[in-house]
């Protein structure tokens, strides 16, 4: 049976530092490769690298990061953050990543999703949506979600559920739903958002924003119908290990990939 996935997310600046990692005596604590290797060893199913570099050398920095990761870590990984052009996607995929994640650029130039899917397959193109809750003007009782871009600074006026469907029609093979309301709260994922999108589209949904512990992951993977749960700080700060999360999920009947010991020497 296909396993539900647990995905640590690393916000990387200049290819060298992971944001939000606790400082300690270990000077490598913030090195994305060291952290990636740790998560790999703990049983992460996938990794997401979100590049937050803002400089002219961005593409070279991303290429170097992808190359280093693909030499050290042998699980699938996704790279996002400022992916704007076909060449950005190509740099990421040809460097050895499985997927490129596209957010704001898809609003401005939707054809980038189609171009990417035609060249590298839908499975390589992730549509990433930042969504914020709104009261629904038509039905007072119900909520809806608006798509925001540029890290939450720009409101697009687009309905997130409709945008999700459009992204899939354009060729996205997976969607990441990041709840701006839940992000950073540790109060749990936006279950309703995930469930409503999962019921509308056929591609896997990756829930993002709000993870405070294993119970939140259980909720979004069961009730929320997500295929994967993404988290950053609870893992970076070693609040919970991936093994703990997976044990919790397995005890409640969620199919997960168990950690196994294999002698590679």
């Amino acid at each position, binding site marked *: 049976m296909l*396993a539900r996935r647990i995905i640590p997310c690393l916000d990387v600046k200049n290819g060298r530092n992971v944001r939000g990692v606790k400082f300690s005596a270990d000077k490598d604590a913030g090195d994305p490769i060291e952290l990636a290797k740790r998560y790999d060893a703990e049983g992460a199913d996938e990794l997401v690298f979100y590049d937050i570099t803002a400089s002219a050398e961005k593409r070279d920095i991303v290429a170097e990061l992808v190359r280093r990761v693909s030499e050290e870590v042998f699980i699938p990984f996704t790279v996002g953050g400022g992916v704007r052009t076909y060449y950005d996607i190509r740099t990421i*995929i040809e460097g*050895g990543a499985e997927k490129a994640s596209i957010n704001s650029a898809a609003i401005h130039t939707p054809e980038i999703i189609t171009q990417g899917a035609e060249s590298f397959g839908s499975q390589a193109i992730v549509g990433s949506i930042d969504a914020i809750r709104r009261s629904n003007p038509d039905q007072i009782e119900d909520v809806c979600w608006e798509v925001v871009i540029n890290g939450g600074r720009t409101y697009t006026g687009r309905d997130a559920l409709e945008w999700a469907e459009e992204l899939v029609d354009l060729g996205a*093979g*997976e969607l990441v739903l990041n709840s701006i309301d839940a992000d950073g709260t540790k109060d749990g994922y936006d279950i309703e958002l995930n469930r409503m999108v999962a019921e509308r589209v056929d591609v896997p949904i990756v829930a993002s924003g709000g993870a405070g512990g294993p119970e939140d992951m259980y909720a979004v993977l069961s009730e929320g119908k997500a295929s994967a749960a993404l988290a950053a700080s609870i893992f970076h700060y070693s609040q919970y290990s991936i093994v703990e999360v997976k044990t919790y999920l397995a005890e409640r009947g969620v199919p997960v990939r168990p950690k196994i010991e*294999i002698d590679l020497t």
Partner: protein
Amino acid sequence: MIAVVNYGMGNLRSVQKAFEHVGAKAVIVDRPEDIDAADRVVLPGVGAFGDAMNNLKTEGLIAPIVRAISEGRPFLGICLGLQLMFAESEEMGQHRGLDILPGKVKRFPEGQRVPQIGWNEVRIQRETALLDGVPDRSYFYFVHSFFVASERDEDVVGVTDYGIDYASIAGNDRAFGVQFHPEKSQDAGLKILKNFAEKV
């Protein structure tokens, strides 16, 4: 030397790096004579079956691949590489494969999300050096829309359930194919690559 065959069907770098990680030397090659010179041959690949066979044919790679297998040099097909080992595919029309194993490549039936993407279990059907030290029901990373229906039970080495049970590892003697990506399947996948490099 392990030859990783490049025929324009996807990125081979990860496969090469994974072999290096387990201490094996792998070289990406695209000429028939490089395949003839190799001790072991790996045929990776993602994409469409028909395109893949056309590319292999155009580049003159079919004969050296078949020769390597018939001479008993270890062979490993990965993902599309497994599918190409079979006689034919019904992916977008009918296509002839390398015809090393009898059987067909078919599309997953309705009712499952296609492609299958993610980690799934492999139930080992028989012992082989390729799987030495790999526990039964280990998880591997899959990305595919088509599966192989083997005609002979003895060619089915591992089985995976995705709505139906299908052969996720197939082969005989020294020519094997795996539907998953061992280069992206953490230690279980690396172990298979190491076994292929050292024991098959």
